[in-house]
């Protein structure tokens, strides 16, 4: 047995010398950067290509979609509100140089959601909840003009095109890795999309302020809705990087700056809203 030994084997042959944190940092940085770049490239391509879809097609697409708020039964009051909103919409659209074939259709919903949105085909819906939070026609016009600006820039279809393309591309990686990696890839993919969304919101804000200026002569009252949002939010806002909208306080500041820059010496007062527009819930008196 003298020829039989077990000499000691030196350490480190079967392990890699790189420090785990360095390995992790390189991998994380590399993969995240790759995904963000790929998503950016895809989004640019998709956004560029989808603009070639004519507006007519977009409208056809929109009418084929079933939406709850399109089917609501309207009371007589609701119809008056919708007509008012449509008239306001037409007034603002005229001030915003919309191309001839782009028609805006303003819908009213009696739901108490505090929001307004623009979707495909020039369809805009304004919710009663939002109407109840504003106290002047100027504030309401700001929100409506913001949505019309989205339509003018074709943001709805561009966002849809980008979202769809990126989702399709990222789903190619759906078999790879475990649940955590899927989540990470999804989050990284979302970052450029969120940046695009914020860019769109800022562009719409700028256009809306210009429209207000043309229709009312000043931009007073424009920040009302956003101030309400800032007051009402109980939770702290997620950081701007992870949000679809720009930081609310920054938005209010920009709007105020614009207001200040365009104050006229004989500034007109804010135009009040008609009585019938507010819902029963806000004032104590019954509407006529």
């Amino acid at each position, binding site marked *: 047995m003298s*020829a*039989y*030994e*077990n*000499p000691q*084997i030196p350490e480190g*042959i079967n392990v890699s010398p790189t420090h785990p944190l360095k390995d992790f940092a390189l991998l994380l940085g590399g993969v995240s950067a790759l995904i963000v770049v790929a998503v950016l490239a895809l989004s640019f391509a998709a956004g560029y290509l989808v603009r070639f879809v004519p507006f007519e097609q977009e409208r056809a697409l929109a009418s084929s979609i079933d939406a709850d708020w399109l089917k609501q039964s309207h009371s007589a009051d609701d119809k008056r509100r919708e007509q008012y909103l449509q008239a306001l919409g037409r007034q603002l659209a005229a001030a915003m140089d919309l191309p001839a074939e782009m028609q805006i259709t303003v819908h009213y919903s009696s739901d108490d959601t505090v929001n307004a949105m623009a979707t495909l085909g020039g369809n805009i819906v304004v919710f009663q909840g939002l109407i109840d939070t504003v106290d002047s026609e100027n504030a309401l016009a700001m929100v409506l003009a913001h949505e019309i600006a989205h339509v003018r820039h074709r943001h709805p279809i561009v966002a849809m095109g980008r979202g769809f393309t990126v989702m399709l591309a990222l789903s190619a990686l759906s078999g*790879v*890795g475990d649940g955590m990696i899927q989540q990470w890839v999804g989050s990284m993919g979302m970052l450029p999309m969120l940046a695009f969304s914020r860019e769109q919101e800022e562009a719409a804000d700028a256009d809306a302020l210009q429209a207000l200026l043309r229709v009312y002569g000043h931009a007073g009252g424009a920040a009302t809705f956003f101030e309400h949002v800032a007051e009402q939010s109980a939770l702290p806002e997620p950081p701007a990087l992870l949000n679809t909208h720009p930081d609310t306080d920054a938005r209010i500041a920009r709007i105020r700056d614009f207001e200040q820059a365009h104050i006229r010496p004989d500034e007109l007062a804010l135009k009040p809203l008609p009585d019938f527009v507010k819902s029963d819930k806000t004032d104590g008196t019954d509407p006529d």
Partner: protein
Amino acid sequence: MIITNIETVPGKTIVKHLGMVSGNTVRSKHAGRDIMAGLKNIFGGELKGYTELLTESREEAVARMVKQAEAIGANAVVNVRFSTSSVAAGAAELFAYGTALVVE
């Protein structure tokens, strides 16, 4: 370094037995290959990407085993065995082990 998977090195005499040496490696193929493998699941055929992966792993595992053998002064490794398993999503571990000898 002579490597065999039988008990001896044919035609040589064993001078010293130096005990177990092993080499292991864990390698992963990139996402592109996984996607191709997914497609092959539909069409069938050899998964060249994965074959490459296992070949690379095997070569590296054997290289590490040889490095251990050299470090203890051996010049042959006999009775070599391989063991492979999947320990991570999409990664293969290959483990080679044998007995290091000094032969002449």
